[in-house]
């Protein structure tokens, strides 16, 4: 990845100033170019002062880009710690909503201080995600928990739901903080540090509704056009994502089914203990062992309950995240395709214009020219001049698009590798955690029943009845 970054800087035939091919370069580009490209820029930074800030982050992000594929973030090199906790409910005349405390501890120089504490609501997280996706259409943003849960009609303010959401939001921010490019995003910094008033006004500085509409229309047009010659590696990626999406969804469903079955098993098991206890009341000699068995069954019920909870609280959220990830990946691949489609369309248009230029002058324009008193030579000259101008414009545009495409492809490729590593780590540790929990569950139940056997042994040896061979 780092190799291609360097190459781009050197070999770019772009007429604009030699731009470093990171984000800030494209921000500079924005000032000169009114034609806003789809999803390409951090369009909030229109004034100079914030540009400086972005310049600072840009150098950091440039370095991080080179580091893209190298060491994984480990605890020692981590210089920013973000936590999401402490949900609180707020009631206004119009609505009730939940805010979460977001605490940041960092040694990064671009932050004014080393500790920040703000309160954010779900909408704010959504905004941040949107901004990151806009700025980096082919980078992979970790998914947010869903807006609301349809199945089971979970109430928005249900305790479990809030905790699940809080945990997912925490993970989301940490994934952003770990990401070499996202973590130096200005929007991310503002999200972590700004007071609520400051955040609101910052949010308003986005591209206007109309220009956003324009982007969407362009995106749809590009999508309709379709990609002609998608590089094989991206086709491979798409096939992988399709398959991965299916598999991870299946695993999610299987796990949910297991939780359901376990809960029903627990319901039945809960009746066993009391039945043994009831029986013990009619017995004399048997009363003690029966009561003991009742106790054992009740203990196992408790363990089963804990085990189900663990599955629900640990494995299922991770699986769910990766189901959402699959959708994110599909969207990222689509956006990349759109950029390529755009490039291909512009290439075609340029070729057509060039063909026009090389064709003979039209008879009609010559005729017109003679009517208004210009010589055929003059008319031909004017036409050629006009075409030359148009072609240069299109040429520039095409070069910019080509650069955009190349950057998008490279960004996707390295973020893809990064994502795969992260997926592997996350899922592996989630499965290992689950396996360990299951082992622990069985070990605890084993101990319960062995203590019963032990108690019967001591009894028996005392009475001299039983042979345990």
């Amino acid at each position, binding site marked *: 990845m780092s190799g291609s970054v360097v190459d781009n800087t050197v070999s770019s035939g772009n007429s604009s100033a030699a731009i470093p091919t990171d984000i800030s370069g494209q921000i500079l580009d924005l000032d000169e170019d009114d034609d806003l490209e789809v999803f390409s820029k951090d369009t909030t930074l229109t004034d100079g002062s914030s540009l400086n800030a972005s310049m600072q982050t840009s150098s950091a992000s440039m370095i991080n880009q080179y580091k893209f594929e190298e060491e994984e973030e480990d605890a020692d090199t981590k210089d920013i710690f973000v936590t999401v906790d402490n949900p609180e409910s707020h009631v206004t005349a119009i609505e009730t909503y939940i805010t979460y405390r977001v605490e940041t501890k960092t040694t990064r120089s671009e932050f004014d201080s080393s500790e920040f504490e703000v309160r954010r609501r779900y909408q704010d997280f959504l905004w941040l995600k949107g901004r990151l996706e806009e700025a980096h259409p082919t980078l992979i943003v970790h998914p947010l928990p869903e807006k609301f849960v349809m199945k089971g009609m979970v109430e928005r303010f249900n305790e479990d739901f809030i905790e699940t959401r809080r945990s997912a939001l925490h993970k989301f921010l940490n994934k952003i903080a770990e990401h070499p490019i996202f973590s130096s995003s200005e929007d991310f910094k503002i999200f972590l540090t700004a007071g609520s008033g400051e955040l609101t006004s910052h949010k308003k500085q986005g591209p206007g509704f109309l220009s956003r509409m324009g982007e969407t229309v362009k995106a749809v047009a590009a999508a309709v056009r379709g990609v002609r010659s998608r590089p094989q590696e991206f086709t491979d990626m798409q096939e*992988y994502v399709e*398959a*991965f999406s299916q*598999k*991870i969804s*299946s*695993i999610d469903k*299987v796990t949910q*089914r*297991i939780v359901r*079955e*376990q809960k*029903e*098993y627990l*319901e*039945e*098991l809960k*009746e*066993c203990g009391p*039945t*043994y206890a*009831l*029986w013990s009341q*009619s*017995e*004399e*000699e*048997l009363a003690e*062992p*029966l009561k003991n*068995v009742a106790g*054992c069954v009740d203990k*196992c019920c408790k363990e089963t309950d804990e085990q189900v909870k663990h599955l629900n609280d640990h494995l299922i959220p991770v699986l769910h995240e990766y189901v959402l990830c699959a959708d994110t990946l599909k969207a990222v691949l689509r956006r990349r395709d759109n950029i390529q489609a755009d490039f291909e369309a512009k290439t075609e248009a340029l070729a057509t214009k060039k063909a026009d230029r090389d064709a003979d002058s039209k008879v009609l324009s010559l005729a017109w020219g003679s009517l208004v008193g210009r010589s055929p030579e003059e008319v031909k000259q004017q036409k050629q001049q006009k075409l030359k101008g148009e072609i240069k414009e299109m040429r520039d545009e095409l070069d910019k698009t080509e650069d955009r495409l190349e950057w998008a492809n490279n960004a996707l490729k390295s973020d893809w590798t990064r994502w795969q590593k992260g997926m*592997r780590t996350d*899922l*592996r540790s989630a*499965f*290992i955690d689950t*396996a*360990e929990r*299951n*082992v622990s*569950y*069985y*070990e605890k*139940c*084993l101990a319960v*029943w*062995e203590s*019963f*056997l032990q108690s*019967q042994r001591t009894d028996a040896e005392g009475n001299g*009845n*039983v042979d345990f061979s």
Partner: protein
Amino acid sequence: TTETQKNRCWNPQSAMVEKGTSLLKKMEISVAEAEKRTGKNAVNMQETYTVYLIETRPVDAASEGTNPVPDSLWRRYSEFEQLRNYLLVTYPFLVVPPLPEKRAEFVWHKLSADNMDPDFVERRRVGLENFLLRVASHPDLSTDKIFYSFLTEENGWKETVFETGFQAKADSRLKALNATFRVKNPDKRFAEMKHYGDELQSVISQLLRVRARAADRLYGVYKVHGNYGRVFSEWSAIEKEMGDGLQSAGHHMDAYAASVDDILEEEEHYADQLKEYLFYADALRAVCRKHELTQYELEMAAQDLTSKKQQREELATGTIRTFSLKGMTSKLFGQETPEQREAKLKMLETQIEEGEELVKERNGECEEFVKSAWVDIERFKEQKDHDLREALISYAIMQISMCKKGIQVWNNAKECFSKM
């Protein structure tokens, strides 16, 4: 055959054989096989039924190492029922061991409720063997000749047992027991025992029901894990580094899903042990009920005797103590002649004599019944306490085994996941 039994964690038979009645000291008994037969029944219709092979061999032969071919004969379930009915009638004061259930009850979804299902037949075979050994290890029942010929005489047993006339006795007993009667002075011990029988039956039924439902659910939990196996395998095909770990983890998930079949089969044996005592509770209640009947009959006889004695007194002294229609009519229409009175007195005397004999007889019967029944009830109590405690222990051992399997599978899976 008895291999499967021996492989169970706890085998009640070893305890029974150890006790050693004289019958079991001589003879080894087993129900070795089951077979399907077809034939014509009483109304000449074609029917399919199962027969069970009863094998007996002398004890010393096996220890001498010669191992001769055992004597054997085939019997069907209805013949076992006849034997038991005979024993019930002949020894009403004994807690007669129960037969395995006639129809499958307390089934959970995987088990079949069909009598022809091979698993059901197999469990019935085991239950019938258990029944024979229970009878053979009972100090009184083991000496019964009809029982002995049931084990050894293939042909003619049916006629022999019929000749005892037990069927008629059984029918009249049944009729009497089903009638409502109240005992004036119920024996406290028997009343308590009957109440215990009721409670035992109720609580074991509940336990069997709850256990069956839990087994059903546990089956579901394990089997769903099999889906992990399938999906992991499919997923491993698209992954590079993760592929091997996923694939092998998947195999362990399949193994986990498959392990539940053995686990629940073992639990079924435990359920069978509980069922035996469910039916034993019924046998216990039957003894108490029969005692009640005996007591009632004694009370009736005593009551009858008292009233006859009173009549004699009245007739002899001419005083009417109790209101009687005869007395009224004699007052109204004049007294009887001295000859008539003499005749009546003589008849009453005879009746009183007979009545006293009857009361004596019934009293004796009652006392005998109480004595024998109570001895057997104490024996039963000891047996029950021992057997059920062993059953609970074997249940704990089963649970431990299940946990150990779980630990192994998930540790293996964890190792595979680590290789992802």
